[in-house]
């Protein structure tokens, strides 16, 4: 009797283990290892940081403090800063379009920062000076917040930004031209 009970228990345990193994194999059960969850958290960790957005008004630079999520990836931070500058200009500087910065990349040698937008931030009626100061505002915001890339290129639809007056087929220096 006792022997029969033992066999039944062993059979039950084997069946249970077999069922669990099958469930894991068929992905009915997904096992998350705690160590890997911890790693993912570290990768995506952001801290809130106070940044300063610069915009040109008449004859002087105006500063707007802004809280941004600062990450370990500099390209992500540059994207946040460029987007914040364009949004601020859209609200306060009369830009009629809401321009989205789709992504920002560094060139492999990290000397060039490539900014990809969904559309041109310029209206047809804008003066050369207004267009120039929009670009200068983005460049100043980037450099004053610690982005380090000597040259910046602007793209729309994966092509250099096209404008009647300003030439974006060439790189613009992060230092800008206004200081010269």
């Amino acid at each position, binding site marked *: 009797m006792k022997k029969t009970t033992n066999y039944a228990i062993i059979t039950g345990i084997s069946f249970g283990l077999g069922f669990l193994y099958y469930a894991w194999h068929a992905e009915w059960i997904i096992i998350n290892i705690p160590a890997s969850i911890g790693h993912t958290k570290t990768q995506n960790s952001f801290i809130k940081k106070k940044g300063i957005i610069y915009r040109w008004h008449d004859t002087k630079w105006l500063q707007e403090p802004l809280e941004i999520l600062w990450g370990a990836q500099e390209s992500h931070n540059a994207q946040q800063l460029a987007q914040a500058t364009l949004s601020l200009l859209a609200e306060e500087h009369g830009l009629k379009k809401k321009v989205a910065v789709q992504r920002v990349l560094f060139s492999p040698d990290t000397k060039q920062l490539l900014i990809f937008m969904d559309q041109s931030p310029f209206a*047809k*009626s*804008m*003066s*050369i*000076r207004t267009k*120039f100061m929009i670009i200068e505002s983005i460049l100043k915001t980037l450099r004053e917040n610690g982005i380090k890339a000597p*040259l910046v290129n602007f793209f729309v639809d994966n092509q250099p930004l096209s*404008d*009647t*007056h*300003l*030439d974006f*087929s*060439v*790189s*613009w*220096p992060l230092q800008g*031209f*206004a200081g*010269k």
Partner: protein
Amino acid sequence: MSLINYYKEPAISGRKEGVKGFALKPICPEHAAPLSAWAQASPACSAKFFVCRRKSYGGLLSGRLFDKLRVSGGRKSVRAERSRSLIPFLFISLLFTSLSAKKFTIMISPEGDTNNSGRTLAEGFERGFTRQYAEALKELLEQDSSIRVILSHDSGEPATQEYKANFANRLEVDLYLSLNFYADEKPSMSIYYYHTALFDAPVDNSRLTLYPTTKAYVKNSAQTKQRAQHWKKLEQYQAQLTINYPLAIPIKQLEGIIAPAYAIELSAQKIADTHTYLQPINTILTDIAHEKNN
């Protein structure tokens, strides 16, 4: 030529026809010295070409010009002969004349063409404003006889930047000016010249070097920068208009131009508004032209 004065030489006679009577000896109006070349004896002759020791004068050329009057010894006789030896002298004189009379050439590019009407203003398109302003400025500038103005293209003509740059570079203009207008009620003027970020390559004239069109400006970049200082004289007009002093940026309107080149952007609503800018720009361009000619 009408400025040249004459004084009479003592009566002389020549063996050839048409040289009897007296000779006219021209005097340089500036230096009050006799001019080195002699005129033919007939005062009615329109052929005049005299060379002062200090300055040359150009005039009409005719076959009679080649008649050389030669005083032989003290006999007060003149022998006129067609002299070949005078020809090189005349060519040299012509060369000096052409060099001294070279005008300062400004090419004005009124932005907009048949394919591009430009920005919209209250009384029409940018294309019309730039054209009318360019023609008025040309008229005003050419009142100074030392300045010649060429427009980059006609009103009914398509003109790409490549075409305009080729035209300006072939003519070897002394200055290139791109005119732009945008709509604004407040009168303002912004001046730009070309500059890009990547390099300001030193121009080595001792060997051939290939440059992309975006780098054509490097050949005269120092001169462009130096002449840009003239625009700062516009401060005398600051009460009338807002002035944004020269900025060096990569601007498409000046791409490929070798000569010192500036782009000017002016604000206006109506055609009448453009008159505000005629005198200030005329003053600066005339200053630049005179500095070059001196």
